[in-house]
């Protein structure tokens, strides 16, 4: 019986030690590491992070989540183990700043690599790549080769449009840019008319919309440029190649003010335990090696001047980017979100 008690006590101790093991226990270790909270899919950034470890010897710990990382950082407060935050859209970046989980930093390397319009004026975050939100259209059923976002509300597209959830970050940024260009009232009307043109209730992700075009449910959809590239080169799921083969990209507003752009970026966490390593990682991400990988592996538009796009991306057509500044877009997101609810877009 006494032996049992000893075993019990021992196991209890082991159990408690094991389950309460937090990453920061090891902050006194000689092993250098950096902690990344990422909204970006693991398979997209892992190759780049691996290169970073090879080059610097710093171990990278990644927590990926589709949602909630900024909130997690807010809740964690000073105890947050996050050093940097990788995001997929401008809204998250400015949202994180507004929630007070970031800090400013100065880096000559970053400043010389990334043009200032893609950097936070207060030095909290840096844009890494850009993506355009374009129109995917059926090659057979859509004769137009030019289009504007505004035109999507036109009755001629009734029942022919597929879009993902209005509350999705990418869509919110797009809607926000429309609010900025046309004002709240016109933008709301536009959104209402777009809703009326939808072939089905918003569902799935950008690729599912292309699937919808393939199946004939709709003729056009809205999506980010890199998805098309990924679908065209998808060996693991070859049917996605078929979907992409029947679709073409149209750059909206190419003749006018330009196509809506969004950024992916990286932000320095306010209470970063490995501050130096965090900054080094950020610098690495802005340099040639990483930028080229972003261009070639992820099919995005790199922001470092001089780094070219991949051939696949170049084949999408000439990009005329909307020069509306990103902070304005980020600030308009909340209103865009309310607009989506008001119009009942996702119902």
């Amino acid at each position, binding site marked *: 019986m006494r032996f049992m008690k000893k075993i019990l006590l021992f196991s209890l101790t082991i*159990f408690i030690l*094991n*389950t*309460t*093991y*937090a*990453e*920061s*226990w090891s*902050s006194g270790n000689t092993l250098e590491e950096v*902690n990344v909270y990422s909204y970006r*899919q693991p398979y997209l950034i892992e190759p780049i992070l691996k290169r970073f470890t090879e080059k610097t010897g710093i171990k990278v*710990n*990644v*927590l*990926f989540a*589709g*949602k*909630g990382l*900024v*909130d997690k950082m807010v*809740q*964690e*407060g*000073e*105890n947050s*183990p996050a050093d940097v935050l990788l995001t997929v859209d401008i809204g998250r970046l400015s*949202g994180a700043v507004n*929630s007070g989980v970031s800090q400013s930093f100065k880096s000559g390397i970053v400043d010389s690599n990334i043009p200032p319009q893609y950097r936070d004026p207060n030095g909290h975050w840096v844009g890494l790549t850009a993506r355009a939100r374009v129109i995917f259209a059926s090659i057979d059923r859509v004769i137009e080769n030019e289009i504007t976002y505004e035109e999507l509300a036109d009755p001629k597209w009734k029942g022919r449009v597929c879009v993902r*959830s209005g*509350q999705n970050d990418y869509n919110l940024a797009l809607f926000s840019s429309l609010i900025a260009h046309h004002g709240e009232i016109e933008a709301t009307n536009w959104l209402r008319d777009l809703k009326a043109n939808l072939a*089905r*209730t*918003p*569902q*799935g*992700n950008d*690729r*599912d919309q292309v*699937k*919808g075009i*393939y*199946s*004939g*449910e709709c003729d056009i959809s809205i999506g980010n440029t890199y998805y098309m590239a990924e679908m065209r080169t998808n060996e*693991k*799921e070859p*049917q996605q190649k078929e979907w992409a083969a029947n679709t073409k990209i149209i750059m909206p507003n190419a003749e006018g003010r330009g196509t809506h752009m969004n950024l992916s970026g990286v932000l320095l966490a306010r209470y970063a*335990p490995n501050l130096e390593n965090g900054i080094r990682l950020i610098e690495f991400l802005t340099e040639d090696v990483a930028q080229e990988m972003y261009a070639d592996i992820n099919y995005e538009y790199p922001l470092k001047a001089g780094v070219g796009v991949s051939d696949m991306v170049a084949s999408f057509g000439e990009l005329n980017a909307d020069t509306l500044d990103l902070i304005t877009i980020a600030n308009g997101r909340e209103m865009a*979100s*309310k607009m989506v*609810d*008001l119009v*009942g877009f*996702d*119902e």
Partner: protein
Amino acid sequence: MVWQLFMRAIFNKFSYQKEFLETLGALFVASIIAIPILAIFYIAFSADDNIWTHLASTVLPGYIITTVIVISGVSIITLLIGVSLAWIITVYEFPFRRIMEWLCLLPLAMPAYIVAYTYGDFLDYTGFVQSNLRFLFGWDSIKDYWFPDIYSIGGSIFIMAFVLYPYIYITSRAAFLRQSITLIEMSSILGKSSLYSFFHIALPMARPAIIIGLILVIMETMNEFAAFEYFGVDTLSVGVYITWLGKNNLGGAAQIAIFMLLFVFLLMMIEKGLRKKRSFTQNNKKQISANRIKLSKGRLVLVMIICILPVLIGFLLPSLVLFDFILERIFEVELLEYSSLLFNSLFLSICAAILTTILGIFLVNTHSTSNNLIIRLSVTISRLGYALPGVVLAIGVIVPLIAVDGVLRNIFGQYFNITIGLILSGTLMAIIYAYIVRFLTISFGTIESGFATLNPDITAASRLLGKSKFSTLIKIQLPIIKPALIMSALLVFVDSMKELPATLILRPFNFDTLATNVYTYASLSDIGNASLPAMTIVVAGLFPIILINRELNRGRKG
């Protein structure tokens, strides 16, 4: 002086000091469970940017209406399936009946989200069914034919119903088995058909049990998150997730959560009331199972089809889809990643199972030996955890744990000058805590039934012979009710393996379970990659089914 009187008064209330300690213990357990619930109320009412009005005027009504529609649809279908199956299997004789008894339970092993993903793949445009239909009939695109859209409210109701009907099946069957055949025979002698007996005798008598099963179905439906999100059906559970993590509004999410909590509390009150009302005053001498009704050839076939269909839809088909995926990619399996997922899931589930069983034993024992008001209250509160849907539970857990971490950090920082990281909130403790809160009631219920079958004479004999209460518990009572302990541990184990929403939100760095892995790949529309983890969850779920069936048949003659 006053203090001494006060303490004496408290001590006198309890017959002896041990009871006082037990009461404290029960209170402690209850507060552990109650904390998340209180935390949610706190967050909801202290939210500074109150988006209540915005929510109420835009999306909240939609969430509520959607949830009500879904619950109604699922309830109707599960009642139809569950009760009919239970009656048919109890009363009629047909080949393979014995096998059908437990086959009907198989959908329990399938988490709803896995069934949702597999059907999504199976029934959508590029899936097996539609592709072959197009091939057969030479159709070109979706404009050429009509096919029901699985990604809809109807689709989600269909899926949930075929996954959850076993709950009603189990309770109805238990009720029918208990019923005395004498009443049915009387009714037959008086000239009434067997259908009449069903509707006017058996059904009303079984009603409390059926409703208990229905309440479980409704609670599980409210808890479900991933399946509804996948189908684009915005229920309250999805609404909480969207508001918290999508719109970054914890306060708003907590406010929606309160709605869910109130509704679920209501259901639990009803269930509690019904459990008391179940009449055991039947003559148990001769049970229905003695003489089953034989059927004509035609009816035989009909009955067998009715029985096999739910299992086919709710279990066999999804399993086949998963198998197909696994075979496709058998050479691409990344063993290292899979083993780590498996280990993580097992670790969490086993810890949760052991801890809840221990707590369950403590609570049941306390409840049965020192039955005062505080203990009864504590037990009731401890059982409320089940009412918290996973997403809501995550909110309720994370906030207090972070607060505790903050306090600990201050203590260590100020007095010991040590910088510690997040002890509780960023770690597995949070997840295990959530599992305990949610599943304690399962453990309590199972162990309570186990204790109920214990012959009180044995306990009395042990005490008379001089053994202490604790000794009696460990050496006599627990070994006797070992099946109940195993059942409790197993049920909690399986539910923990399946658990998704809370785990998704609470997990720390570099940590994934089988369930979260399935979710991640499904949201990338890439279910094939997660087919092995999904299958593992299903296989784990099969074990309790064997046990449950044994329990159902206990005490049955013939």
